[in-house]
């Protein structure tokens, strides 16, 4: 990032920022024909549309279509054998009126809140360390890669390996007992809320680190120096300069973690030994028994709730404003 830093110092800061399309460069404009310029201006006005097209097309084909199907199926009826095209609200009724649904949502929210808080705490400091204490880009990338390697071993294998790690006769319990710290194996380490949260923090912290790191890298180091020159101590710089400027990254990381935890079913099932419920797991059970309408209704409700959560996050931090 040293190139960037020297760039900041080397380049003139402009007072006003013009949208590029309205700012034809004066030095080149001399001999340019009006037609040519018009074409360029049209192109530049069209540019964002062209740039957004691939994303739009992919989402239309692989997201809108399936969601539309799901929404449609959520009104269908089914019995123990078959699914019938229909227009009934029973799937929604059964889902919304059932206390199971709400207990499950509360449980899922509980996981979300705990995991979010932990990943934010850990993720922020890891990102801070990488952004402010590691000086070369190569070193930063190296450390990032080191953090990524564990994820290249299939999640299913890693899930299986938690049992010999955390289990009654597992590595951790054995080590603690050999060291004399405990004399009975700790049972809560596996198949409990503890192990679910542990595995999720393990899986999702990096999703917090990456966006926060990227926003931290964008912070103009001159601002920090200015604050220091003005007599601010480390804590004041952190709370008054760095955290406010890192908010968009924190918001993006939070969106990742919240959506991941809300939709998770594999981690919850494996790590709680099938003893804890999550919204995703409830759906997975229904899908497994080919009760697609019920699962679809559940999914629609989940989608609405999580969109509301994300809307809330965006209300606090508008990540698009500062683009």
């Amino acid at each position, binding site marked *: 990032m040293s190139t960037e830093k020297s760039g900041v110092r080397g380049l003139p800061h402009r007072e006003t920022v013009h949208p590029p399309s309205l700012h034809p460069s004066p030095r080149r404009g001399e001999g340019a024909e009006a037609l040519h310029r018009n074409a360029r201006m049209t192109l530049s006005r069209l540019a964002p549309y062209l740039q957004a097209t691939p994303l739009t097309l992919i989402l239309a084909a692989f997201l809108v279509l399936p969601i539309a199907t799901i929404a449609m199926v959520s009104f269908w009826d*089914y*019995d*123990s*054998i*078959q699914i019938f095209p229909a227009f009934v609200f029973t799937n929604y009724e*059964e889902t919304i009126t*059932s*206390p*199971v649904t709400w*207990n*499950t949502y509360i*449980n899922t929210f509980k996981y979300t809140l705990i995991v979010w808080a932990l990943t934010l705490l850990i993720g922020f400091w890891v990102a801070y360390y990488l952004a402010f204490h590691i000086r070369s880009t190569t070193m930063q990338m190296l450390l990032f890669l080191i953090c990524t390697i564990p994820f290249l071993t299939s999640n299913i294998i890693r899930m*299986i390996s938690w*049992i*010999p790690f955390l*289990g*009654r*006769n*597992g590595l951790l319990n054995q080590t603690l007992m050999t060291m004399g710290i405990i004399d009975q194996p700790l*049972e809560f380490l*596996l*198949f409990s809320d503890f192990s679910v949260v542990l595995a999720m923090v393990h899986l999702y912290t990096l999703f917090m680190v990456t966006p926060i790191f990227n926003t931290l890298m964008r912070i103009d180091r001159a601002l920090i120096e200015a604050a220091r020159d003005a007599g601010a101590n480390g804590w004041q710089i952190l709370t008054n300069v760095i955290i406010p400027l890192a908010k968009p990254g924190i918001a993006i990381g939070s969106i990742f973690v919240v959506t991941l935890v809300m939709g998770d079913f594999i981690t919850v*099932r494996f790590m*709680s*030994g*099938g*003893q*804890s*419920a999550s919204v995703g*797991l*409830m759906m997975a*059970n*229904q*899908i*497994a*028994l*080919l*009760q697609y309408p*019920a699962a679809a209704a559940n999914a629609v409700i989940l989608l609405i709730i999580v969109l509301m959560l994300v809307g809330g996050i965006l209300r606090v931090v508008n990540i698009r404003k500062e683009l």
Partner: protein
Amino acid sequence: MTKKTTSKGVSRRQLLKGAAAAGGLAAGAGVVTGFPTIWAQNPITLRQFGTGVSNINAIAEKCKADLGITLQMTALDSDAVSQRVVTQANSFDIADIEYWICKKVFPAGTLQPMDVKKIKYYDDIVPIFTTGKLTPESKIAQGTAPNTVGFVEGPDSKTFAKSPTQWMTLIPTIYNADTFGIRPDLVGRPIKNWKDILDPAFKGKTSILNIPSIGIMDAAMICESAGVIKYGDKGNMTKAEIDTTIDFLIKTKKAGQFRAFWKTFDESVNLMASGEVVIQSMWSPAVAAVRSKGIPCVYQPLEEGYRAWGGGLGMAKHLKGAQLDAAYEYINWYLSGWVGAYLNRQGYYSAVLSTAEKNMTPDEWAFWMLGQPAKADILSPEGKVMYTVGAVRDGGSFKERMGAVACWNSVMDEDRYMVRRWNEFIAA
């Protein structure tokens, strides 16, 4: 998952002749004569979905060698198999599915029933799958017994027939009778009944299955054994019966009796082998897998009888012409003995016992099927020693085990309600 076996320069006909001569397979003879005319010029590939339980590479290899048909096997978990069969009719040719889910899968219309006239060994199939009765005197067990979803009314029908017809939905592959696996070194007491899993001594050291249609049957056996309830038909519970069962499960779970619920074969093995649980609902080959690691494990017969399950091969609706013929050929080969012996040696049961017997040594047959002590070491299909001289199969003979089936895994009429309550149990 694809298994491509090449014939390595030997012409198929030669290879087949050799195989037939060596194996002395009277059964295979018909297959051999019929085969080259159909596939001499036209190599056939069949794509098969199924769980790892029976989607074994060795079977694909043998099939290639015997029939020249390339079998591309894709192993999935049982949930995924049924989903794919229902939603992706063109991505498979043969599906290996379980009988209980067949009740939901077949009516989706992606499978075609098989003409029993083209099934060479139809008459030799164990009668559990046709009449539902192991012997003419036996009672049909409760639950989704294979015979209740084994036939449909006609070639295009999706309605299950009450008694055998010419149109069979699935050709049975493997089946078994399940109870508890226990760690004899850790339970420290005799285990005789399903209710013994509730012993406070095992608090936090037990497990049952986490597949609703199977777990509820485990639960039903436990509840009835513990005297909590007497079911009219535990394979088709009323709402009140479901309530009582689930409420009891919730109470037990809250008391901390269970350590975990398992879903795949491998989980059950790991739970047992690691000592996380000492008594749990389990499959026979899973018990064998634990034992093969040098850890004592017993498959415990229980007084109330077994909870049984079975799977079978179904044909995709889109199969026709040469591919359809090849599929029938494959199924006839499947029943002709080699596969049956292979499956029996793992501790499962195969559909046609007479042909399997011819492919096993008398000692193997006596050990696995007759419940007699092993006269020599009993080897797994891969050649590992599974049992040493003098060992007896837990639970005894085929007749003793399959004759004592109390219920089958099932899809109930109140399935919708049951799953809701099951989710409540998991959430509790």
